[in-house]
């Protein structure tokens, strides 16, 4: 399946991959998973929202899964760049976005569809 992201080449989206049960995600925090050789950061906000991005800050490779949340923004633990959890966009003009993925939850199981090839 193909979806088109803003300003980007058409990207592929993987099948839904079950990750973990909901309560394995810490409330208000993120957790890192290694999916298909890609490091992915999955977050669960206090309001119950789920989102996932590549666990690699485009700035200097900071581990985003260790970052804090500010609303729906992920704050990188190394130099505090902020990324929108849903779109992956950075709040700094000119800074690249981080790749966002699609997360869903049903019956207490969290699944992810990876977007792009990870390259």
């Amino acid at each position, binding site marked *: 399946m193909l979806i088109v992201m803003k300003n980007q080449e058409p990207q592929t989206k993987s099948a839904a991959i079950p990750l973990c049960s909901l309560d394995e995600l*810490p409330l208000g925090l993120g*957790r*890192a998973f290694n999916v*298909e050789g890609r490091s992915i950061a999955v977050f669960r906000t*206090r309001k119950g929202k789920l989102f996932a991005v590549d666990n690699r800050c485009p700035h200097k490779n900071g581990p985003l899964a*260790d*970052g804090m949340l*500010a609303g729906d923004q992920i704050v990188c*633990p190394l130099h505090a760049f902020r990324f929108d959890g849903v779109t992956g966009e950075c709040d700094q003009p000119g800074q690249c976005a981080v790749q966002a993925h699609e997360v869903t939850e049903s019956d207490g199981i969290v699944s992810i569809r990876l977007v792009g090839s990870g390259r």
Partner: protein
Amino acid sequence: MIRPQKQKLVILGNGMAGARTAEEILQRAPEAFEITIIGAEPHGNYNRILLSNILNGTQTADEITINSIEWYKQNGIHLIAGAPAIGISLAKRTVGLLDGRQIPFDKLIIATGSRPFVPPIPGIDLYGVYTFRTLEDCSSIAKFAKKSKVAAVIGGGLLGLEAAKGLMTHGPAVHIVEMAPHLMAVQVDSAGGAILGKTIASLGAIAHTNKATAEILSDAGSRVRALKFKDGSELACDMVVISAGIRPNLELAKEAGLATERAIVVDDQMLTGDPDVYAVGECAQHRGKCYGLVAPLYEQCKVVADHITQANPGATYTGSFIATKLKVMGVNVASMGERDELPADEVVRYQEPDAAGGGVYKKLIIRNNKLAGAILVGDTEAYEGLAEKMKSQAELPRRRAELLFGAPTECSAEFSLASMPDDKQICDCNGVCKGKIVEAIKAGKTTVQAVGKATRAGTGCGSCKKLVKSLIEAVAGEVKADPAEAFYVPAIPMDKPALTAEIRNRGLRAVSQVMEALATKEDEKSKMGLAILLRAIWGKEYIDERDCRFVNDRLHGNIQKDGTFSVIPRIYGGVTTADELLKIANVAKKYSVPTVKLTGGQRIDLLGIKKEDLPAVWKDLNMVSGYAYTKAFRTCKTCVGSEWCRFGTNDSTALGIAIERKFQGIETPAKVKMAVSGCPRNCAEATCKDVGIIATEGGEWEIYVGGAAGVSVRKGDVLCRVKSQVEAIRITARFMQYYQEHARYLERTYDFVPRIGIEKLRAVLIEDSEGIAAALDERVQRYLDAVVDPWVEDTKSAGGEGVYPGQFAPVRTVTLPVLATI
């Protein structure tokens, strides 16, 4: 009814002193006099000090006007501007003007100021020769300088340098010619003058000292061609500004029969020999002294007003203490008291001729342990403190360096803002250049925070914030007051006391509750700050939500650039044992720790530990956390002290260890570092710690607070002296609690202490002026009683799995399900 006629007051001279005296009089008795002011210049009164800005074009005449023509009208003053007076008749009680008018007076105030001294040499009347005193002078100089190639300034004093700076902005090469062996001979000595000369040379002006001008040479058409010196040499130039000193305008008074010496002689009421005639300003000579700076003149104006209106008939002027702090050609220069030492004087000197941003020179002349004079060039941070010491003639501290380096040095911050190129990096943390910041400011970002948001400048270590602020001032005119600066955390518009009260009243025990109830937005800094506050308010009742903590506080180690962590166990007072070292060594081997480093805090850092190894490392170490990763009490450095050191006067090591045991685990608005030194040699660097304690000769301990030596360098202020270790710990605890309760989030003591003021801290903490000392002691103890070591706490729970899912877990690897639906 006949109204009694008002007394006629004439003020002769409409300059800075004359107009100010009128203002002072109006303030005291607006209806007492019918006032006439006579001025030779065709304007209202303007700020002569700012003339150099007129010369260099950065300000207009309107902008430096103090009293406009309207002001005189509004205040019922009859201004006769552009009308020089040519005579005073004491017998007829009149002032005669050039146009023949006779202005009668009952009271007369002479405020004729001074004029430039023009040396009697041939050529001073040539085309292209100017003096520098009035608005008209400035516009003529500026006009001529635009066409000039080489300008010479005769006189290397304050005004000469100002003139040189102004000239440079118009293009000509500028030479400064000084008769004395160095520049600014009135304010600085020869060594300081040399350093000043160097800095000025680096700015592009060429100074010639030891040069007496004999003649100004002309070309065929009576234009300036060159200066000729007494030693026979010449300097080619096409314009000359003479700034060779000033001479008081005393002639009218002298001809009227009033006593004059160097200027018009006045008594302590600023009265001349005539009971109705005062003199004030640069034209007056009081107790043998003439003043050439506005501050003393303004003091004189007050006395004249007090006396003439009888608002305070006993008012006396007893002379002014002269300390000057000036900015000459962008270089800070300050001086006070004597310039050169006597043979028996003690002299303290510091010089750094090649300092970045311009040379630094500092000299103190000390006589009988009191300050007799001081000169500061390049860095005048110490000025206020020195002026205070000089004025009060206080005994000086034994460590003289304190006098010079008391305050942090920010000398070159605004030094060359305008001349700084656009690609000059301002924020070294985020690599933001001047151009980008200026762009943001022009786009309307006029608070430091807004600039930070737009450009990231100042959001790193914060040390460039002052520069950002100066840029805003320079570009936008002013920095908008940022109400958010008073908030404890950005997301909640309340200061700390209000927020604390609100939290208590509503019984909010978790950060998420506070955010829900009070926040206007959600940001991570606010959550972190609230976590510290809530813990301090509720102690054991605090509901600890881990998502309000920064990663370092969740994993009790410092995150490194590769995502691993550092582990720094506590080593009390920097004193360790062979067994402890063995334990650390074994851990380092077992976990193949890539780097083992001695820290600046007198302990050992194990760097590069993987997240999943943390609990095991802590367990194997079996030591407590050094809290090196968080806003908390960090270390207490010590020196060897009286146990070993031949100079030690007290057991600094024991006190340091006791302090570290007492305060371990206390979280604070920003980090708190301490140190104890065994004698004033201060090998533990206690004077630049948040709390520093130094043993004194008599067996006492001197406690310093508010010091730092990181982004900011600040010497701590002395809070008190105590007699015992127990007392030292008690006072430290009390200070910690007060800081805990009153500091903003991330406000280090180096900002907190000056904000509150050491006097206030002394009153509250030592003299117990608010009667809260006992309560502070009690609250800090309650906090300390609730402390649990985080390494123990988080490994005990869930059998080492951590207190929240995945806290220490290795990254979970997930594979694609065998049958995928697409």
